[in-house]
């Protein structure tokens, strides 16, 4: 792990108008926001969304950005968690035209990819969201060979952006259903080894997912020769 050198500008709370709401099976909602006074994000960074009740009680959660920085809107993909105070509202209540309090981008240098370093990015479930932002940037810049994406989900239905990932050439591993000729299983070390090594070895690895997923992914990347100091992790826990 290296110390970040970023000169990160301070962010402040602002408002975002909800432009699009797409409820995505099985339990996701894709929100596209027009953020007032927006500072462009770097792929991998996140936004904080704060909900405010009539008595000024607030609840806030962080969500990774899925959109390309060049996209005029900020796209968030939110998983509805059981009894999720914030995610439940975003999934069930929010409509186009609503105004939300937001703050971002948050996250600095560490879990950000700007298209320069050759990297492998391994995401599990909604952990794929920040990697989608990286991939969209790579596609726009025409540098997809620098970003080798591994997307892990239980099934195609449960993997956000599955179609877009497959179309962009990501390696998709499903753990509960077969995909083409690939029998359901987490990625095997041999499957990751080629992505890490060929045609040139990666300089960096990004891992995003649950605590268990991140633990598995960092261990497996270590087994195929990625140094732990070049692995950057974004974990999410039980926040709802």
């Amino acid at each position, binding site marked *: 792990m290296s110390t970040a050198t970023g000169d990160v500008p301070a*962010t402040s709370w602002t408002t975002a108008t909800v432009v699009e709401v797409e409820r995505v099976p099985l339990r996701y909602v894709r929100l596209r926001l027009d953020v007032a006074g927006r500072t462009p994000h770097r792929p991998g960074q996140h936004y904080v969304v704060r909900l405010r009740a009539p008595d000024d009680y607030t609840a806030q959660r962080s969500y990774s950005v899925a959109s390309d920085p060049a996209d005029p809107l900020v796209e968030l993909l939110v998983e509805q968690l059981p009894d999720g105070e914030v995610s439940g509202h975003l999934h069930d209540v929010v409509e186009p035209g609503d105004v939300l309090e937001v703050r971002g981008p*948050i996250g600095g240098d560490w879990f950000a990819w700007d298209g320069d370093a050759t990297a492998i990015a391994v995401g599990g479930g909604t952990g794929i969201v920040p990697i989608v932002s990286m991939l969209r940037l790579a596609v726009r810049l025409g540098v997809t060979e620098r970003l080798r994406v591994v997307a892990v989900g239980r099934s195609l239905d449960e993997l956000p952006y599955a179609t877009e990932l497959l179309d962009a050439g990501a390696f998709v591993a499903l753990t509960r259903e077969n995909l083409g000729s690939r029998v359901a299983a987490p990625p095997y070390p041999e499957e990751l080894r080629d992505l890490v090594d060929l045609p040139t070895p990666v300089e960096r690895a990004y891992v995003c997912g649950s605590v268990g997923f991140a633990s598995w992914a960092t261990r497996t990347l270590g087994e195929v020769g990625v140094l732990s100091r070049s692995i950057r*992790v974004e974990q999410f826990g039980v926040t709802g």
Partner: protein
Amino acid sequence: MTRGFTGRRRDGAVRSDRLPPGQYDVGRDWPTLTAEATPHLAREHWSLTVDGLVGTPTTWTWSELHALPHSSYDGDIHCVTTWSRFDTTFRGVSVDVLLDAAGPLPDAAYVMAHSTTGYTTNLPLADVTGGRAWVVWEADGRPLSDEHGGPVRLLVPHLYFWKSAKWVSRLELMAHDRPGFWEANGYHDRGDPWLEQRYQGDP
């Protein structure tokens, strides 16, 4: 105000006086959040050094640390990702004991906590003295697991929990503040949950 939002977790008296603004009670779960691969550190290879602006730079091995007077913290912890966990018991050694041995020089005003992973976090020296900070090896009666920063982590429970550096290996005393890992990535230099000092630019 957010259209249609009333909020859920506000029942009970506990809410009002123990939860800092914007936090919720996570119950008995203890989420982990780290930015790097979790290391496994053998106790016999771990050590803690206090250096920088001190009269006697000092290093303790695992057994030397345990030979110091123990003390406990029993209370609440608050993560910037908005969970708070009540009534967690930690056992270890007060940072005061370490500083008494190392002897801070008069111009020492800040401390940088360093972890074996390269993680760093900066704190005012005043926030780790006066019985408010510990280095701990036990939580809720059990050895601190790798995921929670074992064998030894820093504990500064009155600040957001990213200040409580996991896998702590060095406390460096400094005359001037400089940002640690998350602080350089946009998080607050002090991180008081009661003032909601989450990000750079907060009060």
